[in-house]
């Protein structure tokens, strides 16, 4: 039976709420509205308004309150409606959530999970289309996850809640309707939030990506396979700390790498991946590494212009072919 990414997220929330009375969900319109992307739909009826807590529009305040509640012994899950609005909450995420343990010499624990929607592709224009996962991946003291599959949507929440430190989970807007069969329970229950995954093995090049770009990379791999080119696809899954071993192992097998990232190219997470490969695997490379990223422009509203700004399958395919000189 197939389930959607959205349903998988909801099941994970339901389970966490049912199993641990310290867990509660809070955010704008998570309750009565049913969640902007309908992830929390139905949970208010099931768990009541104390545990499915609608917040006023005050991102800095309620994210900070989540930090405080975590300090105070709860296991809050804070939904920031989208990454775009998280800019208002960054002070609390960086200067409180990420730093408190260290600044207090190890006394404070902030076992907080923050979920947010990221990414473009729905013609929501410049202010509603950010991909700033790289900003978060830069900050010591937090863990950053990007579930790109239904299994990860189902499995990542429990270990994130078990983490003694803040965990940020990025759900890509384009994935909610993705449907897939969940692997057997034993498999997703063992969800590891420290490793990247090889989503497809291949020999001629490594496509490294995460989140909303994974389906694009997989499709590119299919198209390349149809022309006889065999590429590997790595899903980073964990954006901080990066699983450098899996990346290096893949590059050492394929000797060629294309990193696909919806972030703007300059200063992208893709840049960090390329840098690590250059530092750690320089002599394994048979060609310069390449990035397929968003164009350096605020995301335009018009459909064709938005599409032109974002990484597309055709660009990934072209990058691999150019690299292989075919």
């Amino acid at each position, binding site marked *: 039976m197939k389930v959607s990414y959205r349903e998988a997220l909801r099941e994970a929330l339901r389970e966490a709420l049912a199993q641990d009375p310290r867990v509660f969900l809070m955010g704008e319109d998570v309750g009565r509205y049913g969640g902007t992307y309908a992830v929390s739909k139905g949970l208010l009826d099931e768990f009541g308004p104390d545990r499915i807590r609608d917040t006023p529009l005050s991102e800095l*305040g309620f994210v900070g309150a989540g930090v405080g509640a975590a300090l105070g012994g709860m296991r809050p899950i804070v939904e920031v409606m989208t990454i775009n609005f998280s800019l208002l909450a960054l002070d609390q995420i960086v200067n409180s959530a990420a730093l408190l343990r260290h600044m207090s010499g190890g006394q404070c624990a902030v076992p907080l999970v923050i979920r947010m929607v990221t990414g473009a592709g729905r013609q929501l*224009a410049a202010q509603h289309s950010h991909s700033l996962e790289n900003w978060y991946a830069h900050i010591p003291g937090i863990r950053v996850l990007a579930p790109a599959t239904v299994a990860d949507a189902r499995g990542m929440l429990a270990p994130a809640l078990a983490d003694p430190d803040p965990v940020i989970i990025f759900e890509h807007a384009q994935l909610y309707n993705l449907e897939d069969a969940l692997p057997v329970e034993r498999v997703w229950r063992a969800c590891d939030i420290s490793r990247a995954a090889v989503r497809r093995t291949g020999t001629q090049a490594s496509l490294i990506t995460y989140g909303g770009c994974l389906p694009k990379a997989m499709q590119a791999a299919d198209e390349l396979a149809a022309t006889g080119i065999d590429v590997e696809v790595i899903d980073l899954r964990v954006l901080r700390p990066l699983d450098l071993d899996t990346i290096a192992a893949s590059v050492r097998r394929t000797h060629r790498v294309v990193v696909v990232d919806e972030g703007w190219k300059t200063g992208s997470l893709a840049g960090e991946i390329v840098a690590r490969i250059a530092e750690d695997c320089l002599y394994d490379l048979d060609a310069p590494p390449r990035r397929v990223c968003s164009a*350096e*422009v605020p995301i335009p509203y018009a459909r064709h212009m938005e599409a032109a700004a974002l990484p597309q399958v055709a660009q990934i395919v072209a990058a691999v072919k150019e690299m292989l000189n075919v």
Partner: protein
Amino acid sequence: MKKRQPTQSRPAAGEPQRLLADMLRIRRMEEKCAELYGAGKIRGFLHLYIGEEACATGAMHALAEEDRVVATYREHGHALLRGVPMDAIMAEMFGKASGCSRGRGGSMHLFDVSRHFYGGNAIVGGGLPLAAGLALADKLQGESRVTACFFGEGAIAEGAFHESMNLAALWALPVLFCCENNLYAMGTALSRSESQTDLCAKAASYNMDSFRADGMDVRAVFETVSRAANQVRESGRPAFVELQTYRFRAHSMFDPELYRDKAEVEQWKTRGPIHSFSAQLKAEGLLTEDVFLALDAAAQVEVDAAVAFAEAAPWEPEADLLKDVHGPAAVAHGGRR
């Protein structure tokens, strides 16, 4: 940048038939937008103003042409009555190059700087600091303009509201803060977002004068905003206006409206700004059914023409993708970016 078009001579602002006509223009335009959204011509987020037309209509009639306006993502009506041609609005929603933001902005980011219309801001509360800054520019330049800033009651919980109110009051900036209180922020009722639901109490905590009007009554809005705007213009100090209104439609096209009763919506609809105002005008002998129908038909003609314009308008070439990220003069600094 667009050139300012010559001002059309038109009947005095606030004149009843113009108020009515303008409400009808907004209504018919937005009904069409909803339809076009269903047809996939308009995409992204679309936030309709249906039910709230008396607010933008009364307020825009009360403002002077040189005044500045900052609005939210629910700004179609404000843009239209600021004088942005419906053609350009519709083309923008289609994503066409002839749109008022060249197709870059869409429904949430209508702009027309030649008419002092500064958007179209999709960050709740995001327009308020901008408004304070525009007013600061006017103050420093000795201009006697008012900057009117529209926002929903949901924005009042945001820090940006408070920081802006304080700056404006502290520095005596000519900002008119217009809160369109439609009782809901998406699915969150005012009583679940504010511990103090008397919004004018917020203004008092900044030593700022406040005004309140029935936002379903276009004349009341016109009169109140006129008074408030005049006070701002004369005193150079900010003021706060609460317009009590209601949206008849969902928050956006994705909203299943689980959070409010149908009965509540129906109740408010009985106070619909267009039919209650036309009924009033008729009772006062200022309107006949024929005139009403003529105004409505004119609005419909304008809408149809706007749709035709938008349909026919060109798409921006993809090759222009990187345009307008930076202004031209940036090239002066060595030129490479």
